[in-house]
């Protein structure tokens, strides 16, 4: 009872300037909280998205590595080579067009490498001798 009446007395004794100051403190604290929370979320989202794309590219690199290893080990069926290249090219093109829209990275950057590798393999004497 004593504590409540003490608080009431304190609040009643506050002047208009004090109320304005308290209101200012509350608004500033809310604003600071909102800004920190929003910026943090945005940074986190950006990072998550970047990590996702980086992982996609790493997966594609690994698929190429596996494919080349199998090719050298002679465990790839020759008639699966061209379909594999088609699928990979479509996959890379899709990813590059998304990355281009998001980060303005040149979407034709990997094209010469894709084409050169496919030419190297499908026009080689290996392909000619095995693709029956």
């Amino acid at each position, binding site marked *: 009872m004593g504590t409540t009446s003490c608080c009431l007395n304190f609040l009643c004794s506050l002047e208009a300037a004090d109320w304005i100051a308290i209101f200012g403190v509350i608004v500033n604290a809310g604003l600071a909280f909102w800004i920190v929370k929003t910026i943090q979320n945005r940074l986190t989202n950006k990072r998550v998205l970047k990590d996702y794309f980086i992982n996609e590219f790493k997966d594609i690199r690994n698929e190429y590595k596996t494919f080349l290893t199998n090719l050298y080990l002679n465990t790839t069926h020759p*008639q699966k080579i*061209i*379909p*594999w*290249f*088609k*699928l990979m*090219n*479509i996959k890379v093109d899709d990813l590059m067009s998304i990355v281009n829209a998001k980060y303005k990275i040149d979407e034709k950057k990997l*094209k010469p490498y894709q*084409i050169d590798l*496919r*030419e190297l393999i*499908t*026009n080689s004497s290996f*392909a*000619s*001798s095995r*693709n*029956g």
Partner: protein
Amino acid sequence: MKTISVLENFSEFPALRHCNISDESGEKFYHKVLNKAFKEAYVNNEKLSVNLDATAGYASSFLDEAFGNLVYDFTLDVVKSKIEIISEQEPHWKEMILNQTYPQWESRRKSKQQPIVTANHEAWYRLINNELKQEIWERPAAV
């Protein structure tokens, strides 16, 4: 406009350049499908649309041989004015045909460097002085 599709009119698995190294070759596609279809379009004065999509994929040599022979037999100007290539899945094939195959085979035609055939084909059409002629223009080299 007449439309042909590699998938429907030829094969789901187009292979390499010549008949002596692969079954469904560019050479075979040209002689079995493309030459006749283009001749029909030329005679009827209509465009020929060639759809490259929905197959298992291409080697560049397949397309180079097929469309290159077309330029050799019908000239670049006629081919360019009468053909439309559709390649939505792999658009770079269209670019390759237009920017590399066409000019290379046109200069080959001008220098009279005959295309190589590696199998016997039925007589096919060629434009000679704006006149269509059907002959067996080349035969495979004897081994």
